[in-house]
């Protein structure tokens, strides 16, 4: 089990490397924000410990609720903010197709 996980870990590293090899500077900010949202996956870890009742004691449960809240902020906030940024790149030309033609002089 451990070795399988280790294999998955190494392979995922290469996948991440391959996917990001060439990104235009324009997209660095949204990309950073997008990958940021993806590591919000830690929320799954906190939920897992709660839902399988692996943690006992009040302090442990409080810590996990905080962890779930943190994870939620990471996930929801991250994806929302990335979406807002990317929407702005979507607004596309059409309007300025006419602009370069009006050079009859003033």
């Amino acid at each position, binding site marked *: 089990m*451990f070795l399988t*996980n*280790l294999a*998955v*870990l190494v392979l*995922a*590293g290469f*996948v*991440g*490397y391959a*996917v*990001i090899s060439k*990104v*235009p*500077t324009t997209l*660095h*900010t*949204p990309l950073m*924000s*997008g*990958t*940021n*949202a993806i*590591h*919000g*996956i*830690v*929320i799954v*870890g906190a*939920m*897992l410990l*709660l*839902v399988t*009742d692996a*943690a006992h*004691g009040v*302090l*442990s449960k409080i810590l996990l*609720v*905080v*962890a*779930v*809240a*943190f*994870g*939620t902020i*990471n*996930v*929801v*906030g991250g*994806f*929302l*903010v990335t979406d807002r*940024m*990317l929407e*702005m*790149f979507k607004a*596309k*030309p059409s309007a*300025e197709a006419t602009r370069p033609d009006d050079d009859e002089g003033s």
Partner: protein
Amino acid sequence: MIVGTALTGATTRELLYIVSFSLFIYGLSGLTGPKTAVRGNRIAAAGMAVAIIATLLQPDPSNMWLIALGVAIGVALGVPAARRVKMTQMPQMVAIFNGVGGGAVALISWVEFRSTDGFAAVSTHIVVFSLFAAPIGMISFWGSTIAFAKLQDLLPGRPLTIGRLQTPLNAALAAAVVACAVAIVAGAHSEALIVALLIASAVLGVLVVLPIGGADMPVVISSLNALTGLAAAATGVALDNTSLIVAGMIVGASGTILTRQMAAAMNRSITSIIAGGFGGTSESAPMTGPGGIVHSASPADVAIQLAYARQVVIVPGFGMAASQAQYAMREMTKLLDANDVQVKYAIHPVAGRMPGHMNVLLAEAEVPYEQLVEMNDINPEFPRTDVALLIGANDVVNPDARSNPQSPLYGMPILDIDKAQSIIVLKRSMRPGYAGVDNPVFTDPKTSMLFGDARESLDSVTQALKELVTAPA
């Protein structure tokens, strides 16, 4: 029978995790192109939803109310923040979202320690991964918090150091973290050890980011982002969860590359950034300096210069965005467009506060995408540019980066604005830029300065332009 259902449940969960990380990888590959990016982000979000549903699909779920409580708190804090944040404040928002993710990792490791009585009867490799995740998550949380505070101006953006003690203290803290971890792996079960480990990591996170200057912050946020990814992957190994391993690791790997690309765009090595002190050497490097003569101009002067130019290149900087001047600028450039003046925007790779940040800000003001020109394409055009108009940018046009080896900016690729026929600078005051160094462009004889709030200045220039254009020839 019961074993049977539990098994199929576990298989379903594993299958859903595979679906979820496939969606992450597919979505992430979409994020690397402008056309597929919006969809890519949403696909990744769908992957997250699948992973969460899979996790909650348990034969005998406990603590569902506590989970709902955590999610509700997270939504209540995260959603309004994400909706309201201004595009100019994006870097610090990303920093804080990253930080809480790291915090969650650290808390999970702590709870694992508690719930197994100090990793009693847990195999060593699991303990090692969990103890890797804990300090990295904590460093990421506190480092990101400091990055947030600096970008939000809650702390000064300049490097804050504690002098010579800095390096030995950091080393001592790192040694303390490792010592606690080794003791726990060796079989010590005292909770004081893990608490000490977390505290030492927290202090280390604060101390590592404090001396880093504001201009380097994007690289710091990006590297902390990669670290949180790695910590999440380690947590995944400790919890035997494929989804965490894959998602964490692809963020760790892609984040590392992104960090290197950003650092390359700024011509900074990651080690020299972490070593800190960017902008801190300005007092030891006297330059052509603030003693030079500054020519100031009125909005009407600026309007005349612009109206009779053939080509105007605008260099927008964070100062423009900070005073929300991009809309006023767009109004002005519409007039210039109508008056047959060729307008282009020179985009430095690190304009704004993160690579690509300026493109977001200009897209928000509906500046035509074709008018945005990247640094390497615009630089050869400056000699035949009549007016270079600098709006709230500073360090990215500092010629000292080309010619003065003493300057802390030396070596950073810049926009060759000093080669333009004339230069107009819209600036609030003579204050130096974010890196805290002087800029000889301001005292250049062909430079005129229009002081004041960028938006108000642009409004007055637009007004003056209107009068010029409509006046009978």
